[in-house]
């Protein structure tokens, strides 16, 4: 089993508010791997909208993403796209 880690920066001006949170949770749930986010020492399950919302990650914040499981690489790649797009915002 492979564990991948990568750090992403929140680039959209509103940060990871409600809509982006729903977006990342939907993405994480497409994969079988476990996906965790960590920010400022707080670690949460990225498949949980409640968890992702508690991070309240604003613009410029960095989030450490870890994926572990059979499709970890695919999950990481999908999340990378979501983060890089600024959740489709600016």
């Amino acid at each position, binding site marked *: 089993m492979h564990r991948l880690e990568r750090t992403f920066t929140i680039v959209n001006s509103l940060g990871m508010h*409600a*809509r982006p949170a729903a977006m990342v949770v939907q993405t994480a749930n497409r994969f079988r791997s476990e996906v965790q986010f960590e920010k400022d020492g707080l670690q949460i399950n990225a498949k949980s909208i409640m968890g992702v*919302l508690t991070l309240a990650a604003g613009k410029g914040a960095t989030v450490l993403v870890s994926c572990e499981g059979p499709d970890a690489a695919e999950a990481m790649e999908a999340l990378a796209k979501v983060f890089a797009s600024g959740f489709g915002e600016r």
Partner: protein
Amino acid sequence: MASTTPTTLQGLPASPGIAVGRCWTVDRRRVRTPRRKVAAEEVDAELARLEAAIELSVHQLDGVKAKMQAADGAEHLAILEVHRAMLRDPALVDESRRLVREERVNVEWAVKRAIRKIKGAFDQDDEFFRERRSDVEYVGERIVKNLLGQGVDVAETPPPGSIVVARDLSPADTALLFHDRKVAGLVTDAGGITSHTAIVARALEIPAVVGAGRATAVAERGDWIVVDGGRGVVVVNPSAGERADYEAARIRQMEREAELTRLKDLPAETVDGVRLRMLGNIEFGEEVPGLLSHGGEGVGLYRTEFLFMGRDALPTEEDHYRDYRAILEAMDGRPVTVRTFDLGGDKLPSGQKDHSENPALGLRAVRYCLRHPDVFHAQLRAAVRAAAHGNLRLMFPMVSGLAEVRAAKWMLAEAFEEVVAQGIPARMPPVGIMVELPSAAVLADRLAQEVDFLSIGTNDLIQYTIGVDRQNKDVAYLYKPLHLAVLRMLRSVTDAARAAGKPVSMCGEMAGEPLYTLVLLGLGLDELSMNGPSIPLVKRVIRSASAREGRELLDRILGLTTADDIEREVRSEMTRRFPGLLEGAAVVGPVSG
């Protein structure tokens, strides 16, 4: 008992506009959650009830979403999506299941406790967390009400024109009440101006006051009620006089808006068929929707300096690129004129200071950029990359002569070739210059040969031509847009552009001031760029004037000498032709045609 005494409540202005109508109270009763112990053999049945209640809740939210339209605002749909995701969240479902299994409590109580625990994680006193706490609460309430077989969402439809009054509204209630746009206004006892309900009210342009305190205690169904969303005022049972006043104010407001909308899509075309393009001056992407709503046909001046403001590090190429691209996409194919940094003088990145004696004549704008090629290069790379995604035009400020234009264009070509060589999509944008130095105005005929368009920056051109700093109280009186020297300067620029077959625009304050519109028509400008809200009035003048009378007025004032005489002449002509215009009232004249 219904009170007929007028009561005025002060709440928060959540969505502007005035509404007068009959009150429609919505009773969102809080659910009482029963608590009991369950026997070991009941556990599976309880867990099955939880499954069923979640299933039903998801189904209900899907039903609400299906009634909505994309036009109701992405944020609105997103919140329903968040609630839907919360219904299946492991933090809620797993914890509820655990409580039923391990503590043998009924599932209603288990859900309530799981929700309370989740709310604890959002226990911070800021707007974002407050909103999320209420999201979690609404979700828990929905499940519990479904478990108890109680109705969850508002079931009755208010009569058209009603004012909805509620203690608070869930996003689902908000969707159901407002999606058909028949409600005239909204008042809630609770909530803040960033609450979901307030956001939706603004998106749907429904006048709304939130945080009104005790509106539900004062108002009863059928009472007359006034909502002044711009001031956050609610009047329950207004007197006949008050009602009439508000009704009149509402009609005035609607007329103003109708006027604006009617003008928005009409061309800025004179009665003798000269068509101008109305553009906007912007500083932030957030200004785009406002510009479009005022009928802006493009961006004539996008000031890029703000990227430098309030930050320690220089903006990166990516910062620029993202920013330009977002604006280009928001403008959807309309031209966006990016002015390269107008830095220097009083505008420098944090930590840098210009200590020269005379910064206005110092190292600024294109001079600064040519001196700091790394800063300039990043901006130019970003511009050619962004140009692949829309109608970008690039413009250099403070050009004093040909050498600067050539140097800047050379750097642009270099950036373009570099980007292309890297296999990154790019496009070479049209290039223009700001004409804001007398030297550039005098050389406009030569400069026009080198560029694709000219844009006159009147604020600086006037200051440099007359040699006056308008911030200096002692000499500010000399700042005269209608100074004969300025007019001659302007005319030589527009003549030069016309002779070279190049478009010429104006992006200084003069462009947005209706007093000068006829003169500008006489000059034969192709585009006027101003702040969005100035567009409708200037457009009205253009639509009721002819270019010919503009030329006649221009010829007349070019025959006069002093700025005062010229201004008197322009004023009297404008007052004669457009009575009320200069007092800020609506222009009298044909609108359609």
